[in-house]
């Protein structure tokens, strides 16, 4: 058995700080508008109409959400499939981000579809031709896989520590036993889920790109291309590590921990080639389809395309090539943040900016309610993340590598 020199622990820190209270307020504001959507219909809260059927919720909550949760499968591929154990410390935080990210993607879909109570229909009613069906099914399965992958963290937290309140306390022993059985079973079969998670991710990350291909000429030629699925996959792979760096640095600052620069720098050094491949395909596609002519026009589409490419890909690509950037937490944070911003903008551009219906009487801009719900979801995600890392062994403390620990070990068992 291989050994990891990491020791993930529940971080000791108080939950509420002024920043956290701010997030709670943002989350509540989002929930208020969310209630409006469920009581009065989608039209009451959003600026969506028959011309613009999809808006911010699909572009950000779903499309960008899936892309930015890509850290889960890229680190799983690196840490588990390729067995690069030096990255073990970031696998759990990335897994948590992916699990929460996909939970909110699913919630985003639930909120956006008009007949939310039929969200289970795709499980029974199949349309193999539909890219959306593919995305839907894959996301459902992957979400389940992510929860299974997270289970060992749950069992680790409670094995030997089950303490049910009141009369339930007589179930302490059986519960503990159950957890141990679960843990033992999981440690033997986990590789199945880990590989499945990577396969499912490559499938739906790319199919998300196929979604808008069918809109054909309704989509601006700067973005509409038959290689959209490839571009979506490549950008998702490229944004995985930057997202892990981005949130790791935020978390260590917020929880007053030392940033894990030894891991993050190494992770950062892999980003430039990944961004480079994405950039090459993006530019190549632009020249093959000769869409650069649209960049000569000055309009929202050309400006946003340029911003997406320049600030989201080219500049961070150059930054990640520099040793100075890789060694400096603030610079690394900026570079990673730019990639995250670039992919976020790319997904917004693909689903919102590029969409130009033939009979548009106006353009679409999200309503205050739509923005509130999206921002509220992000706030809830951060709050949930904070709660979990304070109560479950997710983050590894640098310099506290006391016990060498076996992968999926069975604590107290045997």
């Amino acid at each position: 058995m291989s050994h990891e020199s990491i020791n993930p622990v529940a971080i000791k820190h108080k939950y509420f700080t002024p920043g956290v209270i701010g997030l709670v307020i943002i989350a509540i504001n989002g929930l208020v508008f969310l209630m409006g959507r469920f009581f009065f219909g989608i039209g009451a809260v959003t600026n969506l109409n028959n011309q613009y059927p999809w808006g911010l919720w699909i572009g950000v909550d779903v499309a960008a959400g899936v892309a930015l949760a890509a850290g889960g499968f890229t680190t799983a591929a690196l840490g588990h499939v390729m067995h690069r154990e030096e990255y073990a410390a970031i696998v759990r935080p990335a897994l948590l981000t992916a699990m929460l990210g996909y939970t909110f993607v699913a919630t985003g879909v639930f909120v956006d579809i008009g007949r939310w109570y039929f969200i289970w229909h795709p499980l029974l009613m199949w349309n193999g031709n539909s890219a959306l069906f593919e995305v839907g099914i894959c996301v459902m399965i992957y979400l389940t896989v992510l929860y299974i992958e997270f289970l060992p963290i749950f069992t680790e937290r409670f094995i030997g520590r089950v303490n049910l309140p009141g009369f339930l306390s007589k179930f302490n022993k059986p519960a503990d036993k159950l957890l141990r059985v679960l843990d033992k079973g999981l440690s033997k079969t986990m590789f199945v889920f880990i590989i499945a998670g990577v396969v499912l991710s490559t499938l739906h990350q790319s199919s998300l790109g196929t979604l808008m291909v069918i809109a054909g000429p309704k989509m601006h030629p700067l973005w509409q291309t038959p290689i959209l699925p490839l571009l979506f996959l490549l950008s998702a792979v490229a944004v995985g590590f930057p997202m892990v760096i981005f949130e790791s640095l935020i978390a260590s600052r917020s929880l007053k921990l030392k940033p894990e620069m030894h891991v993050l720098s190494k992770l950062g050094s892999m980003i430039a080639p990944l961004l480079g491949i994405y950039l090459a395909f993006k530019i190549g596609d632009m020249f093959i389809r000769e869409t650069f002519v649209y960049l000569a026009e000055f309009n929202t589409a050309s400006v946003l395309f340029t911003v997406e490419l320049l600030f989201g890909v080219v500049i961070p690509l150059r930054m990640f090539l520099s040793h100075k950037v890789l060694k400096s937490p603030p610079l690394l944070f900026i570079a990673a943040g730019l990639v995250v911003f670039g992919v976020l903008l790319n997904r917004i551009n693909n689903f919102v900016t590029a969409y130009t219906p033939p009979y548009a009487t106006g353009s679409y801009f999200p309503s205050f309610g739509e923005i509130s719900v999206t921002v509220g979801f992000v706030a809830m995600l951060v709050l949930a993340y904070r709660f979990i890392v304070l109560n479950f062994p997710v983050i590894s403390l640098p310099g506290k590598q006391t016990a060498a620990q076996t992968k999926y070990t069975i604590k107290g068992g045997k």
Partner: protein
Amino acid sequence: MSGKSRRDFLKTTAVIGAGITGISTSTAKAGPKNVLSEDRMGVLVDTTVCVGCRNCEWACKDAHELPAGKLEDYENREVLKSKRRPDTTALTVVNEYSPGKNSNLPVDVKVQCMHCDHPACVSACIVGAFSKQENGSVIWDTDMCIGCRYCMAACPFQVPAFEYDKALNPLIMKCDFCFERTKEGKLPACVNICPVEALTYGTRTDLIKIARDRIKRNPDRYEDYILGENEVGGTSWLYISSKKFEELEFPKLGTKPAPGVSETIQHGIFSYFVPPVSLYALLGGIMWISKRRKELDEEVK
């Protein structure tokens, strides 16, 4: 890791692979009904004949149990001053444009679902609620709909509409080619009521012949073009006109079916689940090798 668990590993991988391939056979067939019958029906809209009486709008609402009001109210031509689109309150609308060639009469154009031969909505619908029927109509099963509105994003003619103001049971709505009426041998409501016979109901093949014939006999009256003959692979509804169709605000579309590229990609990625299963096997192999290498390293130590 012991030898036994390595064997387990391979066994489990194989079982899962077999499981996924097992699913593939049923998935390959899964998909909505999409038939292209030889004698599918269509409607030829002769915009040079239409007088903009909007009786079709009333008849359509009446046939689909939408609030229709009184037929006399439709004589009011004020509404024709602005351009309208079909929505959840009216599945068809008539728009008016300035006169075409050799005429001083305005051009009136009835708008509704085109009932494509290769419909984007049928391909896109996440639950396969849409279908192309033998008689040419593109209809959908409301009970299956989850309200995702992908059909709206996909439709090249921007036709399906959604009830955004309803919190419960919002519907996707569009022209259904009067599927219930034609099943009973009746004409579509709009065709039935049209007082000037601007709408001709017949098999699509016949309609194209009729359209060609009209254009040939009256070259001064018509532009030499049948809209819908080849657009996005052909549509059941066809238009002829005294004006270029761009001037009548028809979207400029190619002749390739709208779902073509998307379905090719989709089926490429999932051709009988070979690519995903291969990827699974490949990753399994890498995982096994890297695990083993680590073990050997440790044994050496």
